[in-house]
């Protein structure tokens, strides 16, 4: 392992190169673009084995990956915001067809108005697509999640696509000291599918349509599969910690500090929340795995606590809250409050976070504050 100063996007690209996907589809969109640019550098220097398809749109990116994965090879793409939204239709196909595609979502706000900066509305809006969603706190964790993601996706007990989410600009465009593994120590074995392949020697039909009953059953199976991925996600996290020496709590959630009040959030904002947790004496529960939602872990973490405050960069429009709050709300009968922060990349400085944490006691159960 070599520690080096690297941009978040470049660290992801380096790890993807090691993971050796056979087919990569690429379409530029800010702020995900540094990843395909760096992978293209590797290709031009003969350091990338996989074939890059420079597609005509994100819709075609996801479509090409579905075609490639259905044929039986490992695939990759990165995208953001409108790009992920354009993939929407195909995302549901990929998960239901149980194709272990892995993508990096560099989180960015959705239009309108057009805004290129970070929030989570893009990936949060795909939370019901049947994909596994993991959120990294820093670029090191995002790079490590990429390795874990392929292991999880291709595990015979899972066979689902995975989105690894990283905060746009805050992580994708900033430099950090990162351990980029030089080899993966056999952690991710080659992908050899037994369920889905397009091979003239073993013909099969993929993507058949279904009447009400088989449709209902296949959709139920998908929900069961997403749920059943949770123990595998934890297992892979633990094994990764053993092999690479880096651990992120328990895999599904990362619990930090002690206190009667719990602050729940995801992604890079948690780093400042952890600093405040030490200063103010509360606990941080960082959701690492958002889908499947680790409800039992969250319930356990919130048991007997005085209050929970959910900080998030997304809105579940029409519910009065963010999506993460609604998931956390279902895990506790105690007091829960919600802060909507950082939409469209609005800065969330540590002093603002500190002020918000100071307001929790005075807030009513169920209250949401939009913190500018």
């Amino acid at each position, binding site marked *: 392992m070599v520690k080096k100063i690297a941009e978040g996007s470049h660290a992801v690209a380096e790890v993807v190169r090691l993971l050796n996907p*056979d087919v990569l589809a690429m379409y530029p969109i800010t702020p995900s673009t540094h990843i395909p640019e760096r992978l293209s550098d590797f290709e031009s220097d003969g350091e990338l084995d996989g074939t890059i398809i420079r597609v005509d749109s994100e*819709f075609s990116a996801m479509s090409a990956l579905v075609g490639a994965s259905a044929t039986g090879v490992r695939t990759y793409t990165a995208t953001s915001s409108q790009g992920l939204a354009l993939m929407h239709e195909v995302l549901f196909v990929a998960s239901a067809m149980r194709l272990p595609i892995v993508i990096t979502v560099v989180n960015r706000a959705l239009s309108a108005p057009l805004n290129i900066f970070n929030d989570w509305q893009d990936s949060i809006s795909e939370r019901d697509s049947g994909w596994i969603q993991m959120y990294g706190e820093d670029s090191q964790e995002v790079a490590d999640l990429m390795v874990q993601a392929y292991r999880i996706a291709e595990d015979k007990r899972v066979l689902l696509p995975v989105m690894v989410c990283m905060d746009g600009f805050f992580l994708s465009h900033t430099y950090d000291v990162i351990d980029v593994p030089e080899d993966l120590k056999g952690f991710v074995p080659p992908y050899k599918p037994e369920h889905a392949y397009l091979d003239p020697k073993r013909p099969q039909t993929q993507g*058949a349509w279904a009447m009400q009953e088989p449709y209902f059953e296949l959709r139920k199976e998908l929900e069961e599969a997403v749920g059943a991925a949770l123990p595998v996600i934890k297992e892979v996290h633990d094994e990764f910690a053993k092999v690479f020496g880096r651990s992120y709590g328990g895999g599904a959630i990362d619990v930090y500090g002690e206190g009667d009040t719990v602050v729940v959030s995801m992604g890079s904002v948690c780093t400042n929340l952890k600093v405040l947790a030490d200063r103010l004496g509360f606990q941080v529960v960082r959701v690492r795995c958002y889908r499947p939602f680790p409800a039992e872990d969250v319930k356990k973490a919130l048991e007997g606590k005085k209050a929970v405050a959910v900080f998030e960069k997304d809105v579940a429009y029409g519910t009065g809250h963010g999506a993460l709050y609604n998931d956390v709300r279902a895990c506790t009968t105690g007091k829960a409050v919600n802060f909507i922060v950082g939409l469209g990349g609005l800065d969330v400085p540590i002093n603002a976070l500190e002020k918000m944490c100071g307001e929790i006691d005075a807030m009513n159960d169920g209250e949401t504050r939009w913190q500018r």
Partner: protein
Amino acid sequence: MSSEVISSGHSACAGCGEIIGERMVLEALGKDVIVCQATGCMEITTTPYPRTAFKVPWLHVTFENAASAASGIVEADRKLGRNTTVVAIGGDGGMMDIGVRALSGVMERGHDLMLVVTDNEAYMNTGIQRSSGTPKYAATTTTPAGSVVPGKREWKKSISRIAIAHGIPYVATASIGFPEDLVAKVKKAQGIKGPKLLHIYTPCPVGWGYDSSKTVYYAKKIVETGLWPLYEIENGKLTISQRPTFAPLEEYFTGQKRYKHIKPEHIKEVSERVKAGWKELEKQEKAGVDLMLLP
């Protein structure tokens, strides 16, 4: 009973021209093939889970992405060390309208793919709505012939011309009424590396409102009238496959409910278009090169 590639028992309508075209193409390609099918009649009539009519590897993803999904298939196939013939196939809606971006993308990128458009000139699967492949004056459920508007107002789009503008090595038109010509073109295309596009005319008895036994009649007749030219463009060189006899257009329009309202002045207008179109085609055949080399 069944062929090597597709079984009986599919639920295509009696007299379906599109499934004749699909079978002719796949039988010509042989078994070392992977098929990527756009949403449409050919998908819905063949693959009701948990059964399938297909005997070759077959994938359906969505309506508008058969070509881009096929580009992923072919690149994966090559990474696996194989050289399988990969074919993306869809109707006029899936390939000429909603899937035209994907189609353009794969042609521009040069994937080693067969692109097949089985054209029945409307969205038949959803109930005969107008597409860019619907010919002028044809009535559909979204361009009905009324007291003021005589069916579709626009001319049919030329997907072959769009294809050749990408500089791809092979583009051809065919009709199921001329199976030898169709099969020869499929086989020739299969032997060419890179993207190749076949635009196949496949009549639809239900959508056009004619007796189901007349599918082959109309597939032949349109070629005889000159309204559907059979040609191929190989490396930019246009060759006409068959000269029409310029049979009267009435012989083609008659018996199709979609043209029931058509008036002599409409037929005259179409007829003039056919004449002008053939003049252009023959000019291009003589000139020798029809490859868009500069933007």
